[in-house]
């Protein structure tokens, strides 16, 4: 297994906040006792603004919150929701922590790899999908599962993955999380 990918060193180039951003940051800072505490919201801001967190962006954030840049990088790498590299249109994050692993996360990852022809951390040539393997996404009850952008897709099978990815590839909107999952959960709780 290759080591965790290092973010590309060639990032956005010199970046800076716009005046509106600075106003927003100033407002954010008021929510917290120290500047340092505003790190996560500011990282979210940066990701919204530049799409992903390059080293240039992280350096800017570090200056903003008055921390060593290494600490910003440390926080950014801790959270998988913070993107450390440019991604395709859809970011597929497959959970591979215990429950999902036992429920067959490896086969899910292999299936997606085979289907898209990419390996982990890579983006398809058409720029549609990026595949990543992440730690627990807190949906152990419906393992195996993956997250595409902000949405969960649970109790995956190769067929369901095919359906989802093919739909996305054909421009259909993301299917919403399956309501029956919730029903199933409630039923099992009742019984």
């Amino acid at each position: 297994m290759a080591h965790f990918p290092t973010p590309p060193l060639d990032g956005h180039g010199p970046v800076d906040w716009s005046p509106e951003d600075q106003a927003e940051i100033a407002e954010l800072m008021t929510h917290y006792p120290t500047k340092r505490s505003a790190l996560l919201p500011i990282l979210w801001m940066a990701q919204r603004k530049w799409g992903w967190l390059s080293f240039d962006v992280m350096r800017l954030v570090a200056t903003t919150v008055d921390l060593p840049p290494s600490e910003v990088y440390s926080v950014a790498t801790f959270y998988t929701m913070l993107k450390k590299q440019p991604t395709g249109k859809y970011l597929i994050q497959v959970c591979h922590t215990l429950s999902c692993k036992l429920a067959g996360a490896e086969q899910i990852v292999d299936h997606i790899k085979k289907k898209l022809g990419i390996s982990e951390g890579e983006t398809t040539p058409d720029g549609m999908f990026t595949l990543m393997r992440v730690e627990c996404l807190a949906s152990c009850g419906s393992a195996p599962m993956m997250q595409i952008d902000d949405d969960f897709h649970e109790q995956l099978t190769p067929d369901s993955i095919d359906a989802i990815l093919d739909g996305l590839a054909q421009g259909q909107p993301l299917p919403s999380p399956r309501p029956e999952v919730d029903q199933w959960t409630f039923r099992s709780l009742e019984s």
Partner: protein
Amino acid sequence: MPTVKINGIEVEVPAGTNMIEAAAKIGIEIPHYCYHPHLTVAGNCRMCLCDVEAGGRGPDIACNMQARDGLAIRTDTPRVKQMRKSVMEFLLKNHPLDCPICDQSGECRLQDYYMDYGQYESRLADPKVTKHKRQDIGDHLVLDAERCVACSRCVRFGDQITGTGELRLFNRTDHTEIGIFPGVRIDHDYQGNLADICPVGAITSKDFRFQKRVWYLTDTDSICTACATGCDIKVCHERNQVFRIKPRRNDAVNQSWMCDHGRMIWQDLTSLGRLLQARVEGQVGNTDAAMQTAVETLQGAEPGTVGVVLGTQASNEANWALWRLAKDALKGASVFWCQGNDPGAWDRVDDLLIDADKNPNTEGVRALTRHDASIGDGADLAHAVREGNLKTLLVLQDDVLGRLGDAADGVAVLYIGTHRNGTVDKAAVVLPAAHTVEQDATYTNRRGQVQRVRRAVHPAGDSRPAWQLLDRLGASLGKAPGASTAAIAFKKLSAQVPAFADMTYRALGTQGLPLVAPQPEAQTDQASQEHHEPAK
């Protein structure tokens, strides 16, 4: 003070002492990686897990258990052994096991504890996680992230000691990796400490890289003489060759740290300017002939025109020997001292360890001046020279001529020192002195701590400890100070100078002793200099 019970043995420790220290006090070793006595407790290696018998619940980490009455822990139960074994297995899961090429092997905690608590049979089925190897993270450091056990000692060092915070743990779970932000290399003067505190081979020293397997090295306790701080060090040497210097714990002086400049003082042993042979009028010769010339010069000088200059670079013993020489053998010789012999261009000064005063023994000489009010200072010396009252000067490792300049033309200088400087070039006689790691002696640091240096290697070339050279000179002049060994010299020094009263080499031990506070009558002598603070 609360009393805690460890393995059934009761021990009384100060409140707030953690269980690792408490156990160490009664000779029980609790294995640990992340705990360091001079860093905050992180509690993330889990190696120090102990069974709590009373005063707590379940297994707990010893580093974070503070002594309180009623606390009782056990470190010898099968469960503790099993926990340690499991922790070791976990820590070693992604370890590259490249001990053959790792500089840490031989002093590696992973190796040590593996032998004690190892799993021995691998259960590893998956391929190991690979990480970044051989990263250049500083001028003196190499980082191998694969060997790291994520103890975060280096992270805490950067945050708490130097405040620079270059190192961080990145990513999560078994991908956790120690590293620096790209382009932000470690650039402080305490890099070597990172290699020291790393319990495994993740951070190693570039200067010592592949130089020697550590088990060949012999450690000699000594102190650093690069500045007035006098950090306690271990000189690691083999076959008369020094390979590295590491700090030694002394809470009164340097805690566990030392600066990178101090780590390199052993390079002075063989540096270009090192005096290895005696010189007479610039001609290299043997020590006996130079000694003879010196004796003739001193005996031929008119009474009252001889002066000796104590050296703040030299040891207490050497300064005492020179002082006795001036008093006994050279009747009527005037004694001076001056400060400020700067050996190198190391202009970085901070409030942690690096002192602006580059003379390791300023306080020691000052203690002598407090005892003998007749000792003049640098201004007196300059005055005497300009007046022409001094025709012969015996200088102990002090660049007197470099400072006096042309004013000292015509003064015959007899110089005893380790390295070449402005005085050496003009001196009539030069006797080569041994470096600090080549001799037994004591130095007094900026806080008045008298500490020993011990001989680690043989003196290079013809050089000899300065106190020995002065003793021989005194013997030739008719009255030797009586410094046949450093211990005897120090014994006589402590008998004669109140500041060193009751000190012996045995009493100094490894940590040294502070100078005895000046007696009331001594205060009246040199009131002006008593509260002199060392320059920062």
